[in-house]
C-alpha cells in the first residue's frame, strides 16, 4: 500500500497545478486551431502536441524534459538551441519557392523591405519596456513572421525565451488571416483595393537559375551574420532551378523539411514548460509580437501606397501586407481581401513577390541584429 501511495504521489494527477493545466489548455487550443481552423496545421499540431508533452508534470530527476541534460528530448532540442533546424528548413523553403513573380516585377521586393519596419520598431518597444537588448532583438524578429528566423536568432541571443518567442511567432503566423485583414482595410480605400495589377512578364529559366547565386552573394555580403540561413535558402533554390539536381530538391522540399518541421515544432512545443513559459515576460512577448505583426502589415501597405506616387503601373496596396513573409499565408490573405471587393481580381501571384522578399528581408534584419548584439 505504501508503494502504491508513494507512486501515486509522483504521477501527473498528483503533481498537476493551475500553471500546468493552463499550458495543457493552450496546447489543446493550438491543436484545435490546426485541425479545425486549418491555421498552419503543419506547425501548430506538432507544436500543440509538444506543449502537452512539455507540461506533463513529473518529479525532478526522471530526466525526461527538454531541459534535462541527456534526455531524449534534450538531444532533439539540441538542434533548436544550436540553430541547426532553421537553416535546414530554409533549405526546404528554397527548394519549394518559385521566385518568378519577384523576378518578373522586382520593384515589389521593396514592399518586403518596408514590412520589416515591424521588427525594428518592436525592438525599440521591447527595450522601452525593459527587456535586455538581446531579448529585445529576439522579440522584434517575431515581426518578420518567419518562424525559423525567429528561432535562429533567439537561440543565439536569448535561448531562455525560445519557448514563448517561437510559440508567439508561429501562433501569429497562423493567425495572419485574423490579424491582417482589419489593418489592410483600415489603411486602404475601396478604390485602392480594386486596383488591378498588370500581368507579370514571363521569366526565363536562365534568370531563375542565376538568381540564387546573385541573391546569395549580395545578401550575405551585406549581412554576413545571416550566412547560415541564406546559404541554405539559396542552395535549396539553386537545386530546384538547376533541374539536374531535381532529386536533391525533391528531398529538400519534402522528406527533409517535413522531418525537421516535426522535430522542431515538437521540441519547441515541449520547451514551453509552465515554469518557464507562464511568466510576465511571456505576456509582454505576446503583446509585442502582435504589435510587431500589426506594424509590419501597416508598413507594407503604406509603402505600397507611397510607391504608387512614382510608378507607372499601379500597385494594389493590399499586396504590401504580404511583405511580412509568413509564406504563403499572407499572400493568400491578400487574395482573400481583394476578392471580397472584386471576385475577378487575382492578386495572389503578385503578392507572392513581396512575400518571398519578406523572407529575405527578415533574414537580413536578423543578421543585422545578431551582428549588433554580439559585437561590443
Amino acid at each position, binding site marked *: 500500500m505504501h508503494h502504491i501511495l508513494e507512486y501515486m504521489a509522483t504521477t501527473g494527477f498528483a503533481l498537476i497545478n493551475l500553471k500546468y493545466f493552463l499550458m495543457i489548455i493552450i496546447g489543446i487550443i493550438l491543436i484545435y486551431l490546426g485541425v479545425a481552423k486549418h491555421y498552419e496545421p503543419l506547425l501548430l499540431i506538432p507544436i500543440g502536441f509538444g506543449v502537452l508533452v512539455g507540461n506533463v508534470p513529473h518529479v525532478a530527476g526522471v530526466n525526461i524534459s527538454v531541459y534535462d541534460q541527456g534526455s531524449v528530448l534534450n538531444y532533439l532540442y539540441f538542434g533548436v538551441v544550436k540553430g541547426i533546424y532553421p537553416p535546414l528548413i530554409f533549405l526546404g523553403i528554397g527548394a519549394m519557392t518559385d521566385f518568378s513573380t519577384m523576378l518578373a516585377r*522586382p520593384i515589389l*521586393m521593396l514592399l518586403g523591405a518596408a514590412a520589416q519596419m515591424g521588427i525594428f520598431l518592436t525592438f*525599440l518597444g521591447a527595450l522601452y*519596456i*525593459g527587456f*535586455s537588448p538581446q531579448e529585445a532583438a529576439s522579440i522584434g524578429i517575431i515581426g518578420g513572421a518567419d518562424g525559423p528566423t525567429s528561432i535562429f536568432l533567439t537561440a543565439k541571443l536569448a535561448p531562455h525565451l525560445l519557448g514563448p518567442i517561437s510559440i508567439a511567432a508561429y501562433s501569429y503566423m497562423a493567425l495572419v488571416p485574423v490579424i491582417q485583414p482589419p489593418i489592410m482595410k483600415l489603411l486602404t480605400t475601396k478604390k485602392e483595393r480594386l486596383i488591378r495589377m498588370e500581368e507579370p512578364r514571363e521569366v526565363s529559366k536562365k534568370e531563375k537559375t542565376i538568381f540564387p547565386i546573385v541573391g546569395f552573394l549580395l545578401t550575405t555580403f*551585406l549581412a554576413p551574420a545571416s550566412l547560415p540561413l541564406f546559404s541554405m535558402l539559396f542552395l535549396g533554390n539553386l537545386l530546384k532551378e538547376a533541374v539536374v539536381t531535381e532529386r536533391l530538391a525533391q528531398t529538400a522540399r519534402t522528406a527533409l523539411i517535413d522531418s525537421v518541421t516535426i522535430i522542431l515544432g515538437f521540441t519547441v512545443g515541449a520547451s514551453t514548460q509552465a515554469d518557464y513559459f507562464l511568466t510576465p515576460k511571456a505576456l509582454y512577448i505576446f503583446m509585442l509580437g502582435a504589435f510587431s505583426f500589426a506594424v509590419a502589415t501597416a508598413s507594407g501597405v503604406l509603402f505600397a501606397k507611397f510607391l504608387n506616387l512614382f510608378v507607372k503601373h499601379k500597385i494594389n496596396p493590399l499586396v504590401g501586407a504580404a511583405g511580412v513573409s509568413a509564406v504563403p499565408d499572407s499572400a493568400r490573405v491578400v487574395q482573400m481581401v481583394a476578392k471580397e471587393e472584386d471576385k475577378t481580381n487575382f492578386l495572389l501571384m503578385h503578392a507572392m513577390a513581396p512575400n518571398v522578399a519578406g523572407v529575405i528581408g527578415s533574414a537580413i*534584419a536578423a543578421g*543585422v541584429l545578431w551582428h549588433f548584439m554580439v559585437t561590443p
Partner: protein
Amino acid sequence: MSLGGLEAINSAHGLSVTVVGIITVFLGLFGLFVILSELHKLILLWENRSGLFTKFNFFKNKEPFPGFKLLKHSPPSVVEEAKQLYILAKFIGEEFSLSQLLELAKKRNLAISKPTIKILIDNGIIIPIDKGRYYWREENITTE
C-alpha cells in the same frame, strides 16, 4: 527585466541599430531589385553577344552588308539605301517579297527607290527564289 524607458533605448544604441537595420534591409532588397531589373536584359545581351560585338567593332573595317563591295562604284545614295534595305530584309526574315520590303520601308519613312532594288538584283545581291520571293545573299562577295 531592467528599468527600460528612453534611457534603456539610448544605452543599447537602440535608435542607431534601428536606423542601420532598416537601411541595410532596404539596401539589400534595393540592390537585388536593381540587379534583377537588369538581369533579363543582361542575359539577352549575352545570348546575342555576337551581334553586339559586330555592332561595337569599330576597328575592323567590315562590310556594312553582304555585297557592299559590288556597289563601291555606285552613287553613295544607292549604297545608303542598300544598307537600309539589308536591315529591313533581316528584320523580315530569311525570305521576303519586294512588296514586303517596300511596305516596311514606307512604314519606317525610309526613302527607297525601286531602281536601287533593281541594282541589287542585277548585281546578284538580292537573289530571286520563286513566286516573287527573294533572299539576301549572305556569303562574302568579292569583286574578282
